[in-house]
């Protein structure tokens, strides 16, 4: 499937920004499930691309610096990616980080008693793959999709207590459950194509990957009850949403910032 991605963000600042640094983790991953046809990142006249490198997790990191004064900073991403359904398996992805690193807990992924209880429900008899699917189902039924009940700062434990959340929360909860069953798990950010079934999706999306011995990293999108397929474009990963953030930046001056975001993922002809 050929997907066209349009991801335009405009940062509007109260006061002119004199100087800024942005680190972008916003390029499609390189693996058998996706092939980049075209990928352009642009930050307007104030932006200058700087250091770029592929990190140990296989993500392309690109630094941008901004020279002001500017009150508006665009981050425009336009690309076309050819995708293939690999049933969620991250086949052919070059990375060097030992899966054990993804057993580390962060603030957002610290288990509490309720998460421990939930993680303990599936039987020990299950294969690792079946167990991962089972945990994903548990997230679907215990943390149904509800927008507006959580924030960017909500932890996995809080999302479970609230009993609802968005993709970030689903990924965090599933990661905690998997780690509690001794499976390394990580947060993945990317894009999702709203398919023909009419389900409402967030075009900027996130899901979890679980490391399964013998199979490697496998993606699980709990809220959509599926493993990532040709409708998904993977861009980066981390220990939690914060660690996998597609854009991290600081600006000098600027004051209050207001964001306008437009994301669209459409199918285009080959």
């Amino acid at each position, binding site marked *: 499937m050929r997907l066209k991605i349009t991801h335009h963000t405009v940062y509007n600042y109260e006061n002119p920004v004199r*100087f800024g*640094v942005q*680190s972008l983790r916003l390029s499609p991953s390189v693996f058998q499930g996706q092939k980049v046809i075209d990928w352009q990142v642009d930050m307007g006249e104030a932006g*200058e*691309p*700087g*250091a*770029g*490198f*592929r*990190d*140990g*997790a296989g993500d392309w*990191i690109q*630094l941008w*610096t901004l020279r002001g004064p500017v009150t508006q900073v665009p981050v425009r991403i336009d690309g076309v990616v050819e995708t293939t359904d690999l049933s969620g398996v991250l086949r052919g992805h070059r990375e*060097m*980080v*030992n899966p*054990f*690193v993804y*057993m*580390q807990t962060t603030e957002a992924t610290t288990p509490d008693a309720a998460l421990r209880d939930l993680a303990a429900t599936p039987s020990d008899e299950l294969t690792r793959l079946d167990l991962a699917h089972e945990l994903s189902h548990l997230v679907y039924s215990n943390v149904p999709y509800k927008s507006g009940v959580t924030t960017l700062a909500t932890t996995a434990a809080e999302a479970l207590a609230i009993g609802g959340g968005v993709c970030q929360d689903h990924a965090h909860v599933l990661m905690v459950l998997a780690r509690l069953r001794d499976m390394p798990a990580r947060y993945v950010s990317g894009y999702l194509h709203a398919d023909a079934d009419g389900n409402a999706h967030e075009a900027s999306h996130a899901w979890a990957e679980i490391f399964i011995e013998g199979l490697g990293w496998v993606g699980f999108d709990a809220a959509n009850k599926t493993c990532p397929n040709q409708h998904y474009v993977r861009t980066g990963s981390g*220990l939690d949403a914060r660690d996998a953030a597609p854009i*991290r*930046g*600081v600006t000098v001056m600027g004051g209050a910032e207001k964001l306008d975001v437009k994301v669209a993922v459409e199918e285009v002809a080959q």
Partner: protein
Amino acid sequence: MYYNEMFDGEKVREAYASLSDWVAQMPVDFRQLKQAEAEALFRRIGITFAVYGEGGDPDRLIPFDMMPRVFTQGEWRRLERGIKQRAKALNAFLRDVYGRGEIVRAGRIPARLVYQNEAYEKAVVGFVPPRGVYSHIIGIDLVRTGRDEFFVLEDNCRTPSGVSYMLENREIMMRMFPDLFRGNRIEPVDGYPEILRRTLESVAPKKCVGRPRVVILTPGHFNSAYYEHSFLANLMGVELVEGADLFVEGEFVYMRTTEGPKRVDVIYRRLDDAFIDPLCFRRDSMLGVPGLMDVYRSGGVSICSAPGAGVADDKAIYTFVPEMVRFYLGEEPILKNVDTWTLWKQDDYKYVMDNLADLVVKEVHGSGGYGMLVGPKSTKKQIEEFRKLIEKNPSNYIAQPTLSLSTCPTFVDEGVAPRHVDLRPFCLCGDRIELVPGGLTRVALKEGSLVVNSSQGGGVKDTWVLSE
């Protein structure tokens, strides 16, 4: 029962032969005069910071003992070989665990201890710094228990401090007792800043053109080791900068100067990992440089020591250093480790809990003598309180026997008396591995005390290595 470094029974050992007359002939009032002079000199230079980040009153002077601690050339050579061997193995380990992790694959170190270690930096995985060196300045803490018995207490691979004491102690001794230095052939230590600078220049990134520009990055003047940062910058002839003096643009790091921005090639940072780049680590850090890690990873600047170098020096990994020497170098370790019980192992746990009163228990990530239990020096109540802490989180602790630290003659009110000492030499790793002949000797000034930490009554001494 304790090894006395000066006396073998009644006999004066070789190393101290010339000093024994000097001590014996020194009149008491002259000694008091000199002691006061030394203190005034230390105050004047302003060297009043706490050693090894122990905190405490930053304006407090650390007591300086005028009686030097001496090694013969032979003793030092063996130590030197041992220290360099260890430094080499530690860097080989860092290169390995940020690469393929062969030592883990070979089952020689448990994966959990390495990859789930809080000092392990995912952001460094897959990156090989210039010359494959991750830790450029390694402080190795040693204690002596016999003529040929040296034990490593801990390795410091991040940003070990204390080297300014090594230099100042010598400087002050030479100023006060020039005759002593004329009469004894003592290896100089004053080459350290030059060797440090050369070491740092030797690990400049590939993209560097011309002579590398080196800076020292300090958290600022409120840091307890600020004196040392400015002292070293001064002696090396490099700029001392704070995070706000540096910025990232394009592919490089620049320093703001009155003549406009100047590109920086090598950063000797005296700042913890968590604070060096708010985009990568702690985002509330005001001390670091946003984007620094991206420039580092793409080869635009060198950071010394590499972020994540701390995974080689925590107390859990420590127990495996002899294994590293064998694994990477195919050699037997020259320096011994102290026997260590790791409390996450069932058998060790039981032994330690049964023998708390005889052991020293330390936190895996603790430092500066905090968060530890010295069994023989603790009350029953203190031991029981510590037991509860261990029960809550056994894997946070290791235990060691109480060591019989060697003693060295030290000036005390009553004259000269033996006091316990340790040693921290500073090993430099760049294109070569170098060690100036000397180090920082800390001395427990209280009679019978084994705690050399300055926060608990420790002082410092000049450390001599005799030439042949």
